[in-house]
């Protein structure tokens, strides 16, 4: 595009949407996939075409699975990079490439969305939301856009949801669901169903009260808002004392999963705030839970609390993966969740929306739960490993849990459920007296210096800490595990080619494993560490694998904690780059076509 054309595009964008800028190369491209952009519908989201990746984990169930098999366990050693793209941003990149009929959308830290030709890597437009200069938050990232109709949705760090025109990147509307100055922010990918764009709020460390909002996809009108902590008089409010509910956390910073037949979304919730349990006595519903919401009304239909009155910063924000499985000979319409509390939870989603406990099994070292009620799933705690104000103890797993936010995956072909885990890792932590909450200020009750040095290594840590685990849900057994020397912050993609792709380690490696055995088949060393969700798509008969590299946020903080307690300093460079791979037999032709 000429300078004149580029300048012209910029002028138009500024005139329409002053708080953003959008530049586009669309007009110059001979074959522009935006010209035949396919509107995204409920039906397409519920039954995504194999060649597309329409939402952050690929489907409503949260499988992070692509049925494509052109790239498979027999030929993955011929996988090569075909194009890459610098995002221009530092910090933690966590969003997948989301692809609709040859058009890719990636989101990055600092509230940026880039539309690209998914085959050639040509930029189609770029949007960046202007954010108040005084805004900062603990997790400056974004986990992916949402697609619906002819719009693209971004949940921004100023707690505002933005709708963009998918063809131009221009703002259609903006709706703020909370006040960033009061500690609220958003990093999650929106869940979209029945015309509602659903988003939740982060900010548990600032003393917020979590909620989920549904916004009309077309108009931007807020349709409903459901708090994850009940107000006095509402069911569950008896599990709070005094005013603790007002600042009780239970944030929602990961998109829910969704059962279209039931019309119900399942969201995980964060820990109660402040961190020490004696600051908020009671069970603290619906913190550390899965909640089932009617997507039309926001009505709470059911819940299961994984653990009550949290003391360990064990957010349970990852939603359960929707999998129908067999348990003791009985077919169950299930929910499966690898808990931050170190247990693998299997639940049943009932017809009325309620959630029934089925089973729970330790998948990493856990020394807190003394028992789990076989009927209700309610754990009992060992007080020796339960911190409090003025009470410092050690506990396992660490405050980052057996699994933090990085999504698990499920492969219907192998029948296995994959968990990115941290093993052999514990914490030492205790609380101090808190002053009054100040709006927009940290409200944790644990000294920052203690959080930064909380790591304690358990026996086995000298061998490895990071793991990828594969579980057979029917047998209730782990069938293989792949070890990583230090941390694993790698979301998992699995494919119909019997493959599993993941990064997550501080050596910057992106790897492919045999999804059936865990054997490493291929690897690539990227510019930075990889903590983003990988995805797969195909255009014109070529299957692609894509992932953003860009180390930051909690992975970087854990690295700092490791460096503080281990005798080493690890350098993981920062900087976002999207890497895209295809089979070598396709590579030259693709690059020639893209540069012609």
């Amino acid at each position, binding site marked *: 595009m000429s300078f004149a054309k580029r300048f012209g595009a910029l002028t138009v964008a500024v005139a329409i949407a002053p708080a953003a800028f959008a530049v586009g190369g669309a007009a110059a491209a001979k074959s522009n996939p935006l010209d035949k952009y396919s509107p995204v519908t409920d039906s397409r989201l519920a039954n995504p075409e194999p060649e597309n990746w329409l939402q952050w984990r690929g489907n409503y169930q949260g499988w992070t699975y692509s049925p494509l098999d052109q790239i498979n366990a027999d030929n993955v050693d011929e996988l090569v990079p075909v194009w890459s793209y610098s995002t221009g941003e530092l910090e933690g990149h966590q969003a997948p490439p989301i692809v609709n009929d040859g058009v890719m959308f990636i989101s990055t830290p600092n509230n940026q969305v880039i539309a690209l030709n998914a085959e050639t890597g040509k930029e189609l437009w770029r949007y960046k939301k202007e954010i108040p200069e005084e805004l900062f938050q*603990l997790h400056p990232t974004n986990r992916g856009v949402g697609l619906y109709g002819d719009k693209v949705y971004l949940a921004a760090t100023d707690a505002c949801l933005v709708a963009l025109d998918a063809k131009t990147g221009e703002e259609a509307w903006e709706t703020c669901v909370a006040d960033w100055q009061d500690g609220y922010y958003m990093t999650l990918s929106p869940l979209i169903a029945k015309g509602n764009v659903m988003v939740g709020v982060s900010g548990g460390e600032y003393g917020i009260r979590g909620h989920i909002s549904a916004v009309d996809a077309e108009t931007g009108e807020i349709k409903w808002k459901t708090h994850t902590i009940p107000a006095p008089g509402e069911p569950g409010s008896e599990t709070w004392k005094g005013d603790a509910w007002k600042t009780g956390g239970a944030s929602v910073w990961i998109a829910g999963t969704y059962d279209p037949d039931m019309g119900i979304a399942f969201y995980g919730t964060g820990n109660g705030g402040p961190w020490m349990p004696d600051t908020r006595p009671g069970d603290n519903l619906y913190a550390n839970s899965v909640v089932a919401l009617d997507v039309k009304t926001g009505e709470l239909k059911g819940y299961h609390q994984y653990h009550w009155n949290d003391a360990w910063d064990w957010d349970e924000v990852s939603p359960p993966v929707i999998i129908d499985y067999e348990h003791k000979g009985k077919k169950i319409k299930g929910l499966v969740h690898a808990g931050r509390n170190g247990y693998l939870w299997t639940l049943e989603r009932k017809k009325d929306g309620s959630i029934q406990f089925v089973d729970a099994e330790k998948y990493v070292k856990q020394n807190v739960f003394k028992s789990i009620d076989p009927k209700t799933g309610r754990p009992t705690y060992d007080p020796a490993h339960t911190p409090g104000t003025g009470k410092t103890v050690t506990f396992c797993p660490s405050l980052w849990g057996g699994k933090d936010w990085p999504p698990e995956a499920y492969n219907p072909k192998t029948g296995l459920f994959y968990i990115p885990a941290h093993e052999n890792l514990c914490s030492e932590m205790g609380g101090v007296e808190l002053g009054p909450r100040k709006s927009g200020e940290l409200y944790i009750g644990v000294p920052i210096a203690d959080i930064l040095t909380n790591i304690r290594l358990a026996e086995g840590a000298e061998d490895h800490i990071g793991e990828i685990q594969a579980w057979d849900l029917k047998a209730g057994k782990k069938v293989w595990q792949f070890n990583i020397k230090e941390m694993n912050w790698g979301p998992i993609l699995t494919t119909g080619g019997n493959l599993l792709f993941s990064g997550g380690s501080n050596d910057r490696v992106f790897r492919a494993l045999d999804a059936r055995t865990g054997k490493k088949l291929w690897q690539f060393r990227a510019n930075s560490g990889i903590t983003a969700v990988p995805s797969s798509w195909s255009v014109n008969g070529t299957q692609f694998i894509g992932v953003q590299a860009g180390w930051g946020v909690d992975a970087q903080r854990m690295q700092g904690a490791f460096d503080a307690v281990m005798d080493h300093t690890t350098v993981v460079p920062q900087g976002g780059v999207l890497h895209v791979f295809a089979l070598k037999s396709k590579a030259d032709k693709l690059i020639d076509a893209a540069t012609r």
Partner: protein
Amino acid sequence: MERRNFLKSCACVAAIGTTAGLASKADAASKKPDSQRPKPGDLLVIEDGHGNARPISASELVLEAQQVMAFPQDPESGVIRSGSRFNKVMVMRLDPALMDETTKNNSEDGVVAYSAICTHQGCDVNSFVADKKEFFCFCHYSRFNPYAAGDVTNGPATRRLAMLPIKIVDDLIVVKEEFTRSPGYKK
């Protein structure tokens, strides 16, 4: 405060162009007394989170004890300039014998005031590591030397902290000059 209240009630729907309205409100807010940068003569005060504030006395500051977080207050109007978090400063007592010339000139009797906003990504710099004699930012582990005018001793930050020159009047800490550089960071 009005801006804060406005945003608290802002479960709002903004049509095309309304974002410009939000931006203008932000600009207007930045001109309000509670959001203006510290001015010479302002007192440094501690807020308690309930809208109450008290001046910091120099004599309460112990050598190299954890920094105190404060905001400037206009002594005439009583307005506390906490409408902008970029006005948050860290106050502490250092050993004057260890200070470089710039730090000495901007302090009195060992008492210094620095911007509490990290120059890397804007987090609060709210820790002092006593054995290293450094300010510490918990977000990305940047460290700054309070004895050397806020110089960076460990990245990823690359720019020194802004310093707020102070003097002591009747045991109270009074702003002597404006920030040595703009507080905050570049996104």
